[in-house]
């Protein structure tokens, strides 16, 4: 029995912080690693809110309906028990965040207020203005700081995870990291490692993600044998401001509060509506609110995959602003008090474009936004007979857990807006109770691990550093990144075609070969960002292959994965989870599949054209669910 539980948490966004807090509260000692000050993590970018089915709006909402909307919104690709328990935990999570001082918007009576979001007909989204992720993150950051002063959490900010250390039995016993200020390599030891490193938007470069979100940590683990699931499912957000450096998000809450998407109509052109009927594209010269016409029930609040696809379809007919992939998002008609609730996002639009969105409709376009896929992790349901022998959120590498956006659970083929903040906090709390239980199951601690194991891992990284720093070739790694991003954005986003995907795989492999010939523009050790990025890029290329090959093989249309050649969801052949495994000898990922846990709800068609508030039933709900709260 290990008395002092020591845990490494890599990543300090919502998931990592929630996990660190819970672990410390339960008496574990946490080493928290982050490439930035944890308070700057990408969770701050989440704008619109967090979905909590607590039914404070008199709409008869419930966690069961929330779970139903989420499973359906994800096009039945998500394992269902995790979705159910996440929805059930929502109300408790909201109460916890409220008690911790998160400044959530209020009703006149002083209670938490809710707004509408995509893919649901309920007012289910609690929010803090239009920077909800920032506020939730700050509240957890503050609790973690409190535990830091108590000596239960030790932070290693400006440090980056490089390698998992596995003992002779393949059990995680620590990590190798480097200090981003001076490239000093260091071993940290512990009896469990939790990875919470977020999404991989930087593989596409121009995404809504922060520049920290490279996906490199998962890429490195994948190259060490971690299974990676549903890589091909990448969410494209319908509303972004294009920039030279990134795509800037314009929150779905803008539409939740009444913002409308339109282009100028052209009655000489026709388009097929989702019900199969053909219609003219509005009236020439007048605003055409195409989402409202095509999807009368959900209108501008259709799920993001649908929104992004319809924007593309309309623009491909030449109706985009200036003929580009660009449409209007209009809040000019909203009353000032509603615009005020969106102030932070409207201000950002104005700062970057110079136009006041209160007076002039915004111009927006789709952009890479969220990584539904990620590390494969186990997730035994409450009533599974082996529930207590398995560990939720543990990867196939024993003792290495994975949570938040960097794992593959909860969202299936398409994430509903405002579900990510919930899944991040929830999975963090789950790991916070599973990890101590896991450590209790170990017969020995890292203190009994042979020192040679740690030394060997360190030496591998020392060698990599030495080789990479001395690279003297003609390629510039940032230019290679631009090339990768051009291909990924063109061929592996909203619309996927097999011939393009084949070419994209070849291109990624070509870039991987050319990467061997990069030159290191900087050879110093002080804050050498070129080196740090070059190290990340190698792992990013491997995940790019996982995404692209998964997309190539999946010959169907499901959620965010749209392949016109196969225009239907194909449950007979493709209702299964994609698993990618690194092949040390071959040059491509090995792709296999595993069944989805569908014990609560049989697949139905996703229809957002007409919908009434039905009260869905979920089957087989266990009676012994214990929430991590």
């Amino acid at each position: 029995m290990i008395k002092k539980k020591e845990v490494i948490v890599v990543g300090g966004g919502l998931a990592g912080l929630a996990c660190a807090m819970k672990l410390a509260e339960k008496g574990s000692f946490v080493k928290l690693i982050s490439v930035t000050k944890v308070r700057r993590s990408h969770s701050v970018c989440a704008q619109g809110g967090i979905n909590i089915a607590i039914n404070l709006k008199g709409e008869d909402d419930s966690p069961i309906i929330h779970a139903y909307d989420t499973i359906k919104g994800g096009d039945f690709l998500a394992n269902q028990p995790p979705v159910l328990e996440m929805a059930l935990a929502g109300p408790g999570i909201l109460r916890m965040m409220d008690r911790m001082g998160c400044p959530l918007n209020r009703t006149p009576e002083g209670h938490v207020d809710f707004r509408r979001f995509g893919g649901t007909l309920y007012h289910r989204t609690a929010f803090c203005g239009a920077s909800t992720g920032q506020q939730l993150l700050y509240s957890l950051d503050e609790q973690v700081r409190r535990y830091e002063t108590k000596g239960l959490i030790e932070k290693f900010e400006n440090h980056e995870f490089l390698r998992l250390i596995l003992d002779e039995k393949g059990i995680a016993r620590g990590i190798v990291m480097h200090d981003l200020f001076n490239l000093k390599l260091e071993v940290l030891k512990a009896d469990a490692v939790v990875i919470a490193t977020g999404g991989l938007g930087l593989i596409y470069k121009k995404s809504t993600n922060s520049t920290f979100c490279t996906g490199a940590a998962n890429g490195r683990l994948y190259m060490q044998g971690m299974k990676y699931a549903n890589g091909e499912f990448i969410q494209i957000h319908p509303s972004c401001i294009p920039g030279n450096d990134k795509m800037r998000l314009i929150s779905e809450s803008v539409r939740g509060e009444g913002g409308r998407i339109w282009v100028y109509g052209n009655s000489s052109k026709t388009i097929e509506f989702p019900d199969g009927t053909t219609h003219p594209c509005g009236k020439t010269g007048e605003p055409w609110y195409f989402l409202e016409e095509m999807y009368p029930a959900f209108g501008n609040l259709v799920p993001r995959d649908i929104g992004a696809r319809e924007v593309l379809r309309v623009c491909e007919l030449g109706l985009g602003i200036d003929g580009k992939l660009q449409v209007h998002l209009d809040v000019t008609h909203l009353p000032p008090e509603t615009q005020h609730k969106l102030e932070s996002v409207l201000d950002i639009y104005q700062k970057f474009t110079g136009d006041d969105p209160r007076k002039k409709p915004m111009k927006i376009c789709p952009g890479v936004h969220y990584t539904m896929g990620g590390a494969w992790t186990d997730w035994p349901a409450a009533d599974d007979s082996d529930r207590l022998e398995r560990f939720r959120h543990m990867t196939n590498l024993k003792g290495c857990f994975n949570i938040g956006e960097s794992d593959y659970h909860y969202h299936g083929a398409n994430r509903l807006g405002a579900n990510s903040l919930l899944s991040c906090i929830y999975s963090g709390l789950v790991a916070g109770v599973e990890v101590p239980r896991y450590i209790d199951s170990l017969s020995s601690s890292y203190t009994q691990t042979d020192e040679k194991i740690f030394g060997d891992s360190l030496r591998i990284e020392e060698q990599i550093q030495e080789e990479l720093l001395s690279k003297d070739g003609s390629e510039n790694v940032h230019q290679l990144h631009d090339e990768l991003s051009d291909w990924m954005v063109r061929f592996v986003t909203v619309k996927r075609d097999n011939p393009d995907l084949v070419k994209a795989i070849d291109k990624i492999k070509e870039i991987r070969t050319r990467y061997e010939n990069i030159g290191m523009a900087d050879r110093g050790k002080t804050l050498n960002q070129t080196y740090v990025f070059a190290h990340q890029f190698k792992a990013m290329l491997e995940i790019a292959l996982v995404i692209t090959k998964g997309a190539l093989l999946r010959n169907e249309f499901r959620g965010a994965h749209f392949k016109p050649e196969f225009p239907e969801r194909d449950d007979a052949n493709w209702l299964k989870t994609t698993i990618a495994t690194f092949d040390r000898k071959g040059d491509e990922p090995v792709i296999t599949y595993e069944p989805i846990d569908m014990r609560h709800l049989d697949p139905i068609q996703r229809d957002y054209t007409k919908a009434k508030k039905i009260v869905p039933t979920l089957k087989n709900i266990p009676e012994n669910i214990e929430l991590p709260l």
Partner: protein
Amino acid sequence: MDNKYTLKIFRGTPGNQYWEEFELERNSAANVISALMEIQKNPINKKGEVTTPVAWEQGCLEEVCGSCSMLINGKPRQSCTALIENYIQSTGSTTITLAPFTKFPLIRDLCVDRTSMFESLKKIRGWVSVDGSEDTGQFGPSISPEVQEAMYTLSTCMTCGCCTESCPQVNEKSDFMGPAAMSQIRFFNANPTGKLEKSDRMRVAMGDEGIAGCGNAQNCVKVCPKNIPLTESLALIGREASKQAIKDFLGLPDAGNID
């Protein structure tokens, strides 16, 4: 129109700082970050010499994480929202200067170490002391929309350090924590549960690193990218600190409202 512009960057490591110029193509959508990214791809200075890429700190690029603070034409701000064309048009000059903050230890080029700001958040007890994360079935105390809005405004502080950089009272001779930490005291004291530890925070505000350090220069409020009413916070904390001093002098526990 001259289709080129110059970024003049104060770079280097502690004790070895120098100016280096880079010439770049004008582009209507360019911001400082995208310009620095161009230099990464082609690290050649204006003289045509191959040099090292410039190091800078960045994160969200949406002005919500606080990472990319630097001095642009001498003024502290976030570089993600700094649009090149706006600078060229408002100054009439095609040269823009970038420099690291001066009130924090320099790491390299445009990067400084702002750890001191996060240490201040520890000192002021910047948290609400909940009994635990376990769900009690209860929300926190109800809060009016008006108070929520005030709290939200204070809580948008992203610890970027612009206020600290602009404050003449933050210097080698003073221990003043700077405006951000004082404003955070106000934020936590405004929370109905956070208020329970108000006296502890006020005693920090009364200490050597506290509000007495403020010289009322009012630079902070002018540079805050989030328009946080920092001078209002500083004045309020000043008044509250005086009240706390009286309470402590009288030796009364903070049990009743003696305001």
